[in-house]
């Protein structure tokens, strides 16, 4: 099986289009290992093919075999927007306004908000709740017994193979959903993921592993011709799309300094899927700038950004009398969120912080039965959003309960794993402040009417369509339940 298994894994990678997204990395980092009885402690106590992602050093601790699983995921998220004070609405007068400068001169509007009654989505109308199903498939292949192993793990959604829903974290979102979004959830938990890893045991007390997650870099160029600007619904469009595969590496190490004691370490490099594009627009009878024959609208998106992550953990497995055994482990995961790039490949103006997530795992085993209990606490890397940005994120505390049954079956063994988990997003309140480093700004500054030259009364004072103004609160729950079946031999 070893060689044919390896070849089969490569076949699966090719057939399933392994060069697509790694969107499910966000899912794994949020919900842990969905095929394991230890969702949150998978970096130290992981079982099953998902070790290929969480800690490839643990692959040699797994029995060779195939595992297929499915998980249901429910994001129960809530954002509550504070009521807007009177007088902050942008009125239709903005269409006939020029900014009145301090020296009495006037200038064109720099930022162009829409009048409130022209916003196509009402404030806060977007609902972030979602329910989704994902399937996982993985395999462990022993290449040299107890010395070298190959692992493959994939996550596939049952809906879209991959996807991204971008949004702006500030006042620009008024043109679109006019709502706030949970920055690290929602579409980040969709998509697929393919991971391949190799583990070796050079010394009896040392296991090393390395793997790659497949991501992609896409380039999209749309050539657009608009024959009549008065009929913007008609355009001739050609598109040039290229998708290039990229491999984001990760590493794992397991050391057994004492019998039963495992010390683990992992390192996952930054991973994301980029989409860079250009809209090459030709307008009929248009005065292009010198040297141009079209107008270029560029865009850059990043899907499923995950920062550089490093973990350190330890686990101890103890035996008991009468076939009873137990294990306990803990790990801390450092994530360099300070380098975060959002869905528009932009760094938050108010820098995020690196964070340290703490995971605990424990289990009791008797015969072929295992029961596990995990816990995790993830502090939010997002600072209080007192300024114009509205990155929604919360501290998170979760618990997972796993059960596993491993009866003998034919020449091998079946492994049936069930898992449920819940995570609570602690309530967080945000109040905008004009003392913020990058405060919410006046989108309709004092202006004159373009014909009369008189100051527009509606422009006096402070106006904004920033959907997060004057403040908001957020909270929520994440739920997941999974079932997997493996055949080990």
């Amino acid at each position, binding site marked *: 099986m070893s060689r044919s298994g390896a070849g089969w894994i490569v076949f699966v990678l090719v057939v399933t289009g392994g060069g697509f997204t790694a969107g499910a990395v966000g899912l794994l980092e949020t919900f842990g290992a969905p095929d394991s009885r230890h969702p949150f402690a998978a970096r130290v106590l992981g079982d099953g093919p998902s070790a290929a992602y969480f800690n490839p050093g643990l692959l040699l601790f797994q029995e060779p075999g195939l595992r297929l699983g499915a998980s249901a995921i429910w994001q129960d998220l809530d954002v509550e927007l504070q009521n807007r004070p009177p007088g902050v609405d942008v009125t239709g007068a903005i269409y006939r306004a020029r900014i009145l400068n301090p020296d009495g001169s006037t200038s064109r509007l720099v930022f162009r908000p829409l009048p409130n009654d022209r916003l196509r989505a009402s404030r806060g109308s977007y609902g972030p709740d979602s329910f989704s199903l994902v399937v996982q498939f993985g395999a462990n292949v022993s290449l040299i017994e107890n010395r070298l192993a190959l692992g493959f793990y994939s996550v596939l959604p049952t809906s879209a193979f991959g996807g991204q829903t971008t949004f702006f974290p500030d006042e620009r979102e008024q043109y679109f959903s006019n709502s706030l979004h949970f920055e690290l959830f929602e579409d980040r938990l969709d998509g697929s993921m393919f991971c391949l890893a190799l583990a070796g045991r050079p010394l009896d007390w040392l296991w090393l592993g390395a793997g790659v997650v497949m991501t992609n870099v896409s380039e999209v160029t749309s050539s657009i011709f608009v024959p009549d*600007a*008065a009929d913007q619904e008609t355009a001739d469009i050609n598109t040039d799309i290229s998708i290039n595969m990229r491999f984001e590496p990760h590493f794992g190490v397991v050391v057994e300094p004492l019998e039963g004691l495992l010390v683990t370490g992992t390192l996952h490099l930054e991973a994301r899927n980029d989409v860079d594009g250009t809209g090459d627009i030709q307008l009929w*009878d248009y005065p292009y700038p010198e040297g141009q024959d079209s107008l270029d609208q560029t865009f850059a998106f990043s899907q499923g950004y995950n920062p550089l992550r490093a973990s350190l953990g330890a686990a101890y497995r103890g035996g008991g009398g009468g076939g009873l055994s137990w294990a306990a482990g803990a790990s801390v995961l450092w994530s360099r969120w300070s380098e975060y790039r959002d869905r528009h490949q932009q760094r938050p103006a108010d820098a995020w912080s690196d964070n340290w997530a703490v995971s605990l795992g424990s289990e009791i085993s008797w015969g072929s039965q295992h029961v596990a209990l995990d816990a995790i606490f993830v502090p939010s890397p997002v600072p209080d959003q007192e300024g114009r940005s509205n990155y929604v994120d919360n501290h998170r505390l979760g618990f997972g309960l796993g059960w596993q049954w491993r009866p003998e079956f034919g020449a091998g063994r079946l492994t049936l794993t069930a898992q449920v988990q819940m995570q609570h997003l602690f309530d967080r309140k945000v109040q905008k402040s004009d003392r913020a480093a990058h405060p919410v700004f006046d989108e309709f500054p004092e202006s004159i009417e373009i*014909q009369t030259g008189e100051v527009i009364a509606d422009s006096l004072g402070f106006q904004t369509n920033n959907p997060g103004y004057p403040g908001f609160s957020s909270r929520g729950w994440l739920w997941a339940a999974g079932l997997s079946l493996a055949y080990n031999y």
Partner: protein
Amino acid sequence: MGRRPFFSLQLLTGILCLLLSAGGCSQEGVDDIPDGDAGEPDGGGVDGWGDLAPGDDLWPGDWNADVDIPADFSGTYASLQISSHYSDVPMIGDVQYRNVALCRISIAQQGAQLTLDTEICSLESESDTDLVQTVFPDAFLRSLPVIRRPAAVMPAADGYRFFAPRSYEVRGVELADPERDPLPTDPDDPRIQDPDGDNNPGLTVRITGIVDGEVYVIQRTWSVMDGHAPQTGEIQSISGLIAWGDEQVVLGSDNPVLESPREGYIDPVAENSHFDFKRVSAGKSCADIVAERDGLFPP
């Protein structure tokens, strides 16, 4: 600099052609109204007649200053003047603009000779697209002085013929020869003025819509009015056609797109550029005329 903006030239100058005649121009418009060969410009004399004299070739050949005119043209009129032109608007193509000027006109009469003092009350630009609109700021309007120009009347089959000969006007620039001197293209040229006082050279016109910004222009226009008064006694109304042309230089803009040189032309259908005078009481102000526009000139 020195380029024509993509849509507002005739729009702007057309209006001024109609109302502010007294200068010089180069872009020819529709001119099927007899005005004779271009003679000496009026130059804006005290009574509007300058050196013009009966028989001058600026006037229709059959006009006679000594003819008896048993009608009273003198008085105050509300005037609606419409000039039509097409402009090549980027991304859209030819767009027809109708420049609508509402004016208060005082006419003084001496026999067959008239002197018109025109005060512009409002300026609007109508077009067959909502994508781009041109706005004449009130400061622009306020910068326009009362314009004096000559006109003449003569008996016709069913009333009187009204005729205002070709005259020229330049705006935003002081030229020694308003009719023939080239318009300067350098915004720092000392001859360029700032009539609307906004610290930008020339006159400022504002554009709003899918393209917006300010355009700073100087211009030279001409117009001829040829109409008819159907009554005798105290004249109540005069109506007729306007022939006009223009020349304009864009000195700058706060939106580069608006500086792009574009083509335009006067509506070839002469009947689309016309005027109407309606007598009003002498006490009517510009504000009154604007308020009573729909009654005076039903849509």
